[in-house]
């Protein structure tokens, strides 16, 4: 009788289920740096990014939007500081905003058909997602939305709290990114999204 009771109390406690056995195994993937599986990527400093962005802006001013887009996608920052990555994202978004809606699809098709163009569109897709996730950062103007929210309404505070809703320029930037997103999928297909999610090289 007592044995049975002991047994049931032992099984009732399921604390052992929460033991992280991977942490105890020296060979497990938890105790292993996954980044060593891939060949290292060259690191790009913020200064290099700024210099490159200057060149891209020059192309843009000269009217060569496609060249500018290609330029910044070919030099996508995979390995660099957050500041360098953000600076590059800012440039990509500037280029995207300066291209007219009617030019998007033909330009994407030209890039897709060129040598190595698929990779460029994958990089573009990564920047689109990064831009969308960044929220306020994408708009360029970093207005603190908190302070703009009227406090008096109280009950509807979540409406004002949504990033972009109170900020005209962020909303506009989002709609640019969304329309690019649609156009890129038309050209590069759903495979482009799976590659974005799969790729270990993050922008």
């Amino acid at each position: 009788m007592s044995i049975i009771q002991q047994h049931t109390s032992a099984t009732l406690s399921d604390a052992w289920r929460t033991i992280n056995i991977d942490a105890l195994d020296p060979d497990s993937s938890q105790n292993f740096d996954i980044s060593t599986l891939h060949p290292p990527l060259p690191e790009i400093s913020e200064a290099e990014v700024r210099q490159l962005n200057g060149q891209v802006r020059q192309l843009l001013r000269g009217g060569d939007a496609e060249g500018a887009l290609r330029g910044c996608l070919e030099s996508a920052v995979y390995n660099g500081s957050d500041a360098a990555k953000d600076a590059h994202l800012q440039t990509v978004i500037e280029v995207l905003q300066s291209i007219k809606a009617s030019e998007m699809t033909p330009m994407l098709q030209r890039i897709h058909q060129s040598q190595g163009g698929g990779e460029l569109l994958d990089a573009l897709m990564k920047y689109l997602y990064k831009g969308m996730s960044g929220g306020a950062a994408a708009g360029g103007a970093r207005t603190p939305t908190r302070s703009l929210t009227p406090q008096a309404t109280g009950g509807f505070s979540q409406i004002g709290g949504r990033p972009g809703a109170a900020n005209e320029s962020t909303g506009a930037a989002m709609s640019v990114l969304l329309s690019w997103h649609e156009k890129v999928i038309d050209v590069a297909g759903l495979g482009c999204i799976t590659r974005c999610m799969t790729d270990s090289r993050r922008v």
Partner: protein
Amino acid sequence: MAAPEVHHLFHRPIADHSFSADRQTLAVAKDSTVELYSKVGSTFKLKDELKGHDKTITSVDIAPNSGRIVTCSQDRNALVWEPSPTGYKPTLVLLRIARAATFVRWSPSETKFAVGSGDRVIAICYFEEENDWWVSKHLKKPIRSTITSVNWHPNSVLLAAGSTDAHARVFSSFIKGVDARPEPSVWGERLPFNTVCGEFLNNSAGWVHSVAFSPSGNALAFAAHDSSITIVYPTGPEQPPQAVISVNTQLLPFMSMIWNGESEIIAAGYDCEAFRFQGGPAGWQLTGTLEAKGRPGSGDAREESALNMFRQMDLKGKVKDDTQLKTVHQNTISTVRVFEESGGAVTKFSTSGVDGRIVIWNA
């Protein structure tokens, strides 16, 4: 092109399927049992159930000559089912793994089989006569993650394995006393056990879902989760391969693939249909789908009466019935296998998937 032969067996996912050499018996992995179907007329009838695993069966393979069936499961075991006059007799194989077994295939010689696992090892299993026992040796280094699929070289010594650490690798599984010394090939000359003959990954480094040696064994293809297939042409041992060709597609990822001769690959996966790739060492490309689009009876070109249209709008809020995919498979295809070959070319292949269908296609 003749229409594919569709067998809808049940409404459960099929993890893996395998046909016997005479194509009269079909083994299907369904939950924790393997169902054996035999061909009656033009349909498959359930004949036998192999019960022995207590968790989901992940893979099943019938040896073409001996008729032995090997199964592996998430319960960390593999069973060899020996055919006998009174039915199939299971023998447990000592895998010595601590995680689920994910994939199993007989070697072409049928004296060994390889079991991939979530324990970062591949168990190479062979029969030890003196102990009357299936034992295993582990291929361990340098695997860093779960093995998703394995594929045997025609010489039964080399083994390709795809893993979730994004690498496709080629190992030697040479076992003294079981294997004859292999002929030197592009993969190497001296091949002691666990020699790594090649280690490949593609640019975006996605999980590898499927690996396959070409019929000659001189090229390796792998499909990864980045919707690509990559074909590797090795030059020789310790040298960089002469060509590594990646085809990034606009489609969803491929789960399984087979070679058809040396210059064609058939792959299928999350798009629920099979696609054809063609090429050689100079380059590969996607040439199209094997699905015959717009077959009669696929439903989208049917004439609708006005009454019917308004009735549909009233009942369902829409005119078109779009609950069916336009493909034969109605869900992800998880396995593609060669069904019939003649003169080195695949004439028919079979697919199975999450929708519980087995489909036999004309290649």
